[in-house]
């Protein structure tokens, strides 16, 4: 994609992400000819969309359809592109009972209606059930603007389709990898916004007769936060082009950490105003906390990386010259 096309794309995506409109994002994107843009250059298109989504703290459900597309693609089952993917629920796992019925407990971003719902049961089992066999309850989360729903139910064996073995684990992992990359893009978008906006504010707010941005204590907070964001951005770009599981894992780890740290440092620069609902900041903070939890929070992922290094006794290198 050349720079002019990319600029145009950014402008129209920003509009779609911020307009007041209840039509699902997927349908509004479709009107833009989004499917062709993605088909043409998926990495740039998706990277741009999710980074902007972070930048604008848009609440549209962009990730749900992408997870379904990734799973459908990995399974070679186009019907599943309309599926709703049930992510880990904080209240308990989904499980297969002895009689073959499926106990569902999962989290989604859009109510599934009658669409199929796919949940992870264990490393080698996915359960597929119809959305209308489940109870859908809106969740109250840290981020009230980002809709999340809990799906629960006990679906009899006859209504459960099971995907098993390596097919199941390979497909689910491919979906997780894709999702981690996209969430990393979004977290980087948040972090970049928060840093730029705090840096600007410190140039405007005057105390002791000068802009507070002249104080080294604030300069150093923002600079050190920026450094991790740059690292996260490079990892995220690489994870997009390479598409491999390890770089997406590391990218989401650093992006989660960078966004949380950017929020912590930026908040201090705002003083009291940043602590209020009169300021946009709290939306970014809340969104960061909720996004970081999806597909593994950064602390858990750091542990996962460390365990992998210790047990494999191998330290892989990401990216070659």
């Amino acid at each position, binding site marked *: 994609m050349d720079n002019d096309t990319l600029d145009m794309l950014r402008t129209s995506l920003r509009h779609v992400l911020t307009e007041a409109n209840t039509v699902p994002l997927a349908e509004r994107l479709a009107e833009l000819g989004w499917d062709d843009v993605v088909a043409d250059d998926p990495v740039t298109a998706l990277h741009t969309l999710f980074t902007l989504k972070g930048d604008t703290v848009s609440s549209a459900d962009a990730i749900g359809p992408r997870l379904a597309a990734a799973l459908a693609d990995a399974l070679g089952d186009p019907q599943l592109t309309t599926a709703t993917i049930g992510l880990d629920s904080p209240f308990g796992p989904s499980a297969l009972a002895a009689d073959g019925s499926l106990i569902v407990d999962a989290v989604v971003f859009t109510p599934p209606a009658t669409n199929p719902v796919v949940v992870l049961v264990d490393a080698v089992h996915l359960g597929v059930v119809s959305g209308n066999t489940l109870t859908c309850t809106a969740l109250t989360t840290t981020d009230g603007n980002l809709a999340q729903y809990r799906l629960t139910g006990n679906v009899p064996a006859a209504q459960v389709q099971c995907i098993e073995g390596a097919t199941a684990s390979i497909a689910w992992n491919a979906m997780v990898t894709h999702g981690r990359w996209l969430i990393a893009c979004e977290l980087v978008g948040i972090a970049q916004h928060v*840093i*730029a906006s705090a*840096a*600007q504010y*410190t*140039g405007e707010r005057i105390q002791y007769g*000068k*802009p507070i*941005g*002249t104080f*080294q204590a*604030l*300069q*150093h907070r*923002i*600079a*050190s936060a*920026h*450094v*991790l964001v*740059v*690292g*996260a951005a*490079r*990892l995220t*770009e*690489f994870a997009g082009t390479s598409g491999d599981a390890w770089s997406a894992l*590391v990218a989401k*780890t*650093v992006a989660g*950490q960078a966004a949380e740290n950017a929020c912590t440092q930026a908040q201090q620069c705002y003083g009291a105003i940043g602590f209020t609902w009169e300021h946009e900041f709290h939306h970014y903070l809340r969104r960061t906390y909720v996004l970081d939890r999806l597909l593994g929070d950064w*602390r858990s*992922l*750091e*542990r*996962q*990386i*460390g*365990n992998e*290094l*210790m*047990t*494999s*006794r*191998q*330290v892989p*290198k*990401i*990216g*070659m*010259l």
Partner: protein
Amino acid sequence: MTSPVATPTADMFDSPSAYAAALQQFLSTDERAKPYIGYRPHSLEDSASHLTGLQALLFDSGWSRLGWPHSAGGLGGDPRFRAAMFQTLWNMDMPIPEPFTTLEILVPVLLVFAPHLSDALLPGLLRGDDTWAQAFSEPDAGSDLASLRTKMEPDGEGFRLTGQKVWSTFGHLSKRSVLLARSGGPGHKGLTMVLVDLDQPGIEVRPIRAEDGENHFSEIFLDNAWVPADRVIGTLGQGWAIAMYMLQWERGAWGWLQQGRFHQRLQQAVELGTPNPDFAQQLGHAYALSAALRLTTKQTVERLAREEQLGPEVSVDKLLLIDAELATWDAIRAYLGPRFEADDSLQWLRHEYLFSRAAPIYGGSQEIQRTLVAQRVLGMPRD
């Protein structure tokens, strides 16, 4: 066994990675490379003399000449070839000879501002026949480098230097040094960069023992030392501008070289240690930062290879390097447990650990870099 390739040239390889693979093949099959694989030095002097052999081997077989221009005795190709060589040496657990790191910082500057010097002197430097130091800092000019006082006065066909330099890495093991002196009035504009011979009557070099117990750097006393006019780098008064140009290499390309070390040392640690979930997060954190450094400096090396002019954003590379370096060594020390402090066979690793404590100080301290990033990259106001 014989070496598989005659003299390599840049056009033999599609990419620096292809070159790296061929170099790895050479180093793992050529008998002459054996003494350097997994080499653990007893002291810095021991390491310096042993690794001269590796430098000569890499030069004579042509591998270290890639990434340098033909005019200066190189074999062509852009700086990514040099970066790929460093990565390959780390992959093979072969230490990077210290003069290479000085070269990486000083020679790109000569290529632009004093090609007559790089053309004449690079081959000897690259081969290890000659070693150079960098003498900028003074006892009263650390972070505030532009306040330096070493005097440079015209005398016939050259100049006389009088003053004192300090913290000059490898100074006592070097034949020459790039030096920043005051040829004019106060401030940035009065500074000039020269290449001075250290083995002359007007100069005394005294090694200083660093935290790791090694004579890592030196004091240099100059009393009417001589420097011929053709050893001026750039022009009189251009010293500060050239020092700023140098920073893109000192802060950018250096980071790539170091991330190779961090990955290699983490590799050593996971080979030596006993898996223990208590240390999983600390190791994961160190690895993630090293990976972030790797991709960030990879982009910087690629930009340098395209001859882009890099600005204050290279301070980001240096700051990320500091974070990655401290995190990596802290994780290694924690993971290896009490034996890290006591095991005889780990002395070399302890020395590297101790040396890592200098990361936030040298080459512009962490505070100086953060201020640069805040003001010049993020546009925060200056006082």
